[in-house]
């Protein structure tokens, strides 16, 4: 896919609209998933973490097909042949995606069979095959089948008189070819029950013995079809379109609308079909015909469909030595031991870096707000809350304590719709004022505002973040949190809430950049500013850390900056449509992606501004959807020590020489070469630093204690 940019390097006018300057979004995303897959191969990672990485590549891929590939398939069906920024039509893209995905699947299973399963076996974690089950285990399995599995399994027969049943997407099904006494053929399906673990843990003397549920069903298949002969039985999986189509303009009640379209997700059109490699021709033909799937989208899998369930193995108890060493997010020395979190924020702005520092401080802030009698109101946005959440508990508590609680719940957050609807209803019941965001825009900004009546009058405290208010992912995702009570920030955040609740139109912003109105312009202005600096003889420098870079206007601006001589260092975890090393266009740009233990999630923007650096954190990536179709915030960090901290963090990311992959001019990502005498892994460094900082703080506290004048 490497597109060699034409070698005619006539110093002619460069047209930045040329397709050759951009990477395709989907292929770039697949590259990212390859990088995750590399982690599964990486023997320096603990074994179960490698299993986890493999599982993640699989669930990632599933979502990718449900949303992105489904979208392209729809375009293809509709006969749309427009080109993307890299000059590819939907048909081209689908073809290339298929090629790349086939290669990826091959590598996934190679990893599983050649690397992970043998290694697991060495650690006495075995996935048993049917013929490896001895009598004792068989007895256990029979019993498990009869008492637990059998009652909930519903086979479905298909023949001329019955239509093809609606098999839910993403689950595993068994396809069965049957023959009756008259030797007439018919087909049946058995969807694997999803309420039980996929891997059955069989008691065994040493280590862990696992057995696949589908194998259990196969063993007992004749029980389902008495009077028929089972000719063949093998697994398959359908991936369905998972993009909810909601007509928001006409939606009278967004909540009801989304609830009903969630049901549709189960029946979205089939995008991909995975089948067991040894599936017979009859069954295969029948499925392909019934589901009407293009050949490109059929994947033959050697063994064990749906690798995402490997997460069950990765999470096995009792194998801590095969996992990353436990790391406890450190308390922030600024908050630690302080009774009054508001007082701390009044003294100065505070920055936290999760998960190196603990998310508990954010929870604590909310807890105090819910309990403090001086607090009048709390307003918060919620995007991905997760299944359980102390945040919801405190919001409810605050409402019960008589505070005015306003919660903007984004019910359109993909794959979290169900959770969020659930929360929205619960909050409403508790008396919170729940708002479902704006028509046509997803509310992605992460904001928490606390209004407090103090002696000097009303004061507002604000927490803003690059990451969601999600208790679970807060331990796994890397993010930046920011607390302040400066009026200018508070006014903007308050005004933003008033827009979200529909009470007001946008004001002129004092501090924040806000999408979809002013965010892109703000970025472009600061990029331009760096170009100006260079033109005036200074040195221009930009460092950006984001998850994805896809917006053409921003990429163009970065190219122009590079062309003007600005040094641009990008840390882009996922999709990157920008190309590096193009002569005369992007020689001054480096791109690196870091994939590691924690999901890189923070967005940090640095503009050198001729020695007076401007630093921002944001909820927004540089994608059109973030800049145009979401409510996002860009938060300037102005306190000098916090600016320095962000600069230090960025520099650590640029220093990583082990988990970083650098984008090459040919489009490949490669680990930095050069002497590896000193291995530098940014995430480990940040864990170390956070620990050190806290230890130092505690020590100092103790010293201070001892230095108190002694009483006689």
């Amino acid at each position: 896919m490497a597109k060699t940019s034409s070698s005619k390097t006539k110093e002619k006018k460069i047209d930045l609209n040329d397709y050759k300057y951009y990477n395709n979004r989907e292929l770039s995303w697949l590259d990212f998933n390859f990088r995750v897959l590399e982690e599964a191969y990486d023997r320096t990672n603990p074994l179960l973490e490698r299993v986890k990485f493999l599982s993640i590549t699989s669930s990632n891929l599933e979502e990718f097909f449900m949303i992105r590939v489904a979208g392209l398939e729809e375009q293809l069906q509709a006969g749309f042949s427009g080109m993307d920024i890299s000059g590819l039509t939907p048909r081209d893209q689908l073809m290339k995606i298929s090629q790349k995905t086939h290669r990826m699947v091959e590598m996934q299973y190679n990893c599983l069979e050649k690397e992970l399963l043998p290694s697991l076996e060495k650690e006495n974690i075995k996935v048993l095959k049917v013929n490896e089950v001895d009598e004792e285990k068989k007895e256990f399995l029979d019993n498990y089948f009869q008492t637990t599995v059998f009652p909930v399994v519903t086979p479905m027969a298909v023949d001329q008189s019955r239509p093809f049943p609606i098999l839910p997407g993403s689950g595993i099904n068994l396809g069965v070819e049957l023959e009756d006494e008259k030797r007439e053929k018919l087909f049946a399906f058995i969807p694997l029950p999803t309420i039980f673990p996929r891997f059955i843990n069989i008691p065994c003397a040493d280590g862990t013995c696992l057995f696949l549920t589908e194998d259990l069903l196969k063993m007992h298949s004749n029980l389902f079809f008495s009077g028929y002969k089972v000719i063949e039985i093998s697994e398959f999986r359908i991936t369905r379109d998972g993009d909810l189509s909601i007509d928001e303009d006409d939606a009278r009640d967004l909540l009801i609308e989304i609830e009903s379209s969630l049901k549709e997700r189960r029946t979205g059109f089939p995008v991909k079909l995975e089948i067991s490699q040894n599936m017979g021709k009859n069954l295969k033909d029948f499925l392909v015909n019934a589901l009407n799937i293009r050949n490109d989208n059929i994947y033959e899998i050697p063994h064990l469909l749906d690798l995402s369930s490997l997460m069950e193995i990765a999470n096995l108890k009792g194998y801590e030595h095969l996992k990353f060493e436990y790391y406890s997010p450190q308390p922030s020395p600024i908050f630690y031991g302080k009774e009054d979190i508001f007082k701390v924020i009044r003294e100065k702005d505070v920055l936290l870096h999760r998960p190196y520092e603990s998310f508990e401080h954010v929870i604590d802030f909310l807890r105090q707000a819910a309990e403090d009698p001086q607090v009048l109101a709390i307003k918060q946005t919620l995007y991905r809350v997760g299944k359980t959440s102390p945040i919801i508990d405190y919001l409810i508590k605050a409402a019960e304590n008589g505070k005015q609680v306003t919660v903007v719940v984004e019910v359109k957050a993909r794959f979290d719709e169900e959770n969020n609807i659930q929360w929205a209803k619960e909050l409403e019941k508790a008396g919170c004022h729940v708002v479902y965001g704006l028509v046509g825009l997803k509310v992605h900004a992460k904001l928490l505002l606390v209004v407090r009546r103090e002696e000097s009058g009303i004061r507002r405290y604000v927490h803003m973040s690059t990451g969601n208010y999600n208790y679970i992912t807060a331990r796994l995702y890397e993010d930046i949190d920011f607390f302040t009570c400066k009026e200018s920030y508070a006014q903007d955040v308050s005004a933003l809430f008033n827009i979200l609740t529909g009470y007001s139109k946008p004001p002129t912003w004092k501090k924040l950049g806000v999408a979809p109105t002013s965010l892109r312009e703000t970025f472009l202005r600061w990029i331009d500013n760096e170009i100006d600096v260079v033109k005036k003889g200074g040195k221009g420098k930009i460092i950006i850390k984001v998850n994805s870079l896809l917006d053409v206007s921003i990429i163009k601006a970065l190219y122009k900056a590079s062309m003007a001589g600005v040094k641009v260092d990008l840390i882009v975890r996922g999709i990157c449509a920008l190309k590096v090393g193009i002569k005369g266009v992007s020689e001054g740009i480096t791109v690196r992606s870091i994939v590691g233990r924690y999901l890189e999630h923070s967005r940090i923007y640095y503009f050198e501004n001729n020695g007076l650096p401007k630093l921002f954190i944001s909820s927004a990536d540089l994608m059109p959807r973030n800049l145009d179709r979401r409510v996002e915030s860009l938060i300037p960090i102005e306190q000098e020590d916090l600016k320095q901290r962000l600069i230090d963090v960025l520099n650590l990311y640029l220093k990583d020489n082990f988990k970083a992959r650098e984008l090459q001019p040919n489009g490949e990502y490669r680990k930095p070469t050069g002497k590896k005498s000193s291995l530098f892994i940014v995430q480990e460094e940040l864990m170390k630093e956070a620990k050190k900082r806290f230890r130092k703080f505690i020590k100092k506290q103790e010293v201070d204690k001892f230095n108190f004048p002694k009483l006689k």
Partner: protein
Amino acid sequence: MVAGVINIGTENISFDIAQNDQDDIDIIESLDYPLFLGRDTFTTGRISFEKVKILSQKLLGFKRVAEEYGANKLQIVGTTALREAENLDFILDQIETRTGFTIDVLDDYEEKSHIYMELIRNFEKYKKYKRDDVLFVYIGTGSMGLATYSRGLIDSSQNIKIGSVKVSEMLRDLEENTLHYSNLIREYLNTFYQPIKVWLINKKIKTFVTCGNEIEFLAGLLGKNEEEVLNIPQEEFDELFQNLKSKNATELSREYDISESKANSLLSALAFYRLLLEVSGAENILVFPKVNLSKSLLFQVLLSRKYRRFFNLLEKSTIISSRNIGKRYFYEETHSQTVEKYAMKLFDVLEPVHQLSKRHRLLLQVAAILHDIGKYVNIKKHYLHSYNIIKGSEIIGLTSRELDIVSRIAYFHSAQDLEIDDYSSQLENTPDKILITKMLAILRLADALDVAHESKLGDIEVNLEGNHLIITTHTPKETLLEEWALKRKDNFFLEVYGILPELLKKV
């Protein structure tokens, strides 16, 4: 303390929440919801019920926000768009049923008084401009207020029923047919040129002081903003005017990324200011960007003690501008002053009996000053002319209801042998009947005491003794006429107060 003011305006419903911060107020929250009520009122005359529904929803939302800040006081006011809606009563009722809120629909004069007070408060600091006469200009969305200010007081005011939004809503249909929309507005505005010129005839205006979104935006175009006061010299304004005059709203909205409705009112405002510069010959425009109605009201609530001075100033301005109206109609100054003096004295002594407020005292004072003003038109039936002139005038600080009271007092002041029965039937449907009657009785008495228009009685002493009102004069002059006049008017007084006035001569 935290207080909030919701202003239901022509374009937006705005909501400001503020707290007091020593000598100033600190705006915590400013919400603006674009509802465009003016579009309804100025075109169809009525406000649609869909908008009433939205308005009610937003009011309830605002109430939430007010609660979030624990606001102790919430005031809801309406201005032109509501005031001029034909279906106002139904709308207010609907809103009250839906939200429980009572909206205080401000009188046009009231609205302007608040703005003028705010302008004075801000302007006072700028001493160098105070040496000459100053013109205060407030271009509202539905009407334009003008007031002259000299020696620390507003001495005259004018209200023109044409505002920035109103004019653009009115001329909207014509806009498409003209190349120079601003010319069109100017032509329309020419009607006002001569009257304003006459009104300003004795004034030397060097500066005019104003506030408002439009002029603030225009100042911004000249690179002036972010300051407490923006100064636009006349030449700069003219240049800007030349640049913008040939543009229509669509062009303007595209060029400056503003809504078309805003561009429209901008064009009207541009023409207004240009006209005023021409008529007044002012050299500077001083813009106070922070002044607006809500701010003024918030100030009054949060810093009421500090604000008292401005109410006093306003009252003084009311009296000064009443006298100036008198002068314009060649009133008999000494008689007017004498009646005013006597009326005030009587009012104060009778306080335990009538229990009227300070505000009523002011109304009586204005009535006393202006009661004979109709003689300018004709001596015959002068009370009728007085009534018409007062009712048709503008007196800074008085609402139209108050002006109505004053003019009615003037109407009945002279009738000989006014019988309470006939009188009552004439005032049948006036809500302020009792009020008017009480003040009228005092004015008639005061007028009788100067029946000869010679201030013959000089300084009088007034004492209330039982049901006798003893008026003592020390004049050596013959007082037969006054005694006769007193007798002729005392019936009415007796009927109203149950008190008999008596003139006592002590030389």
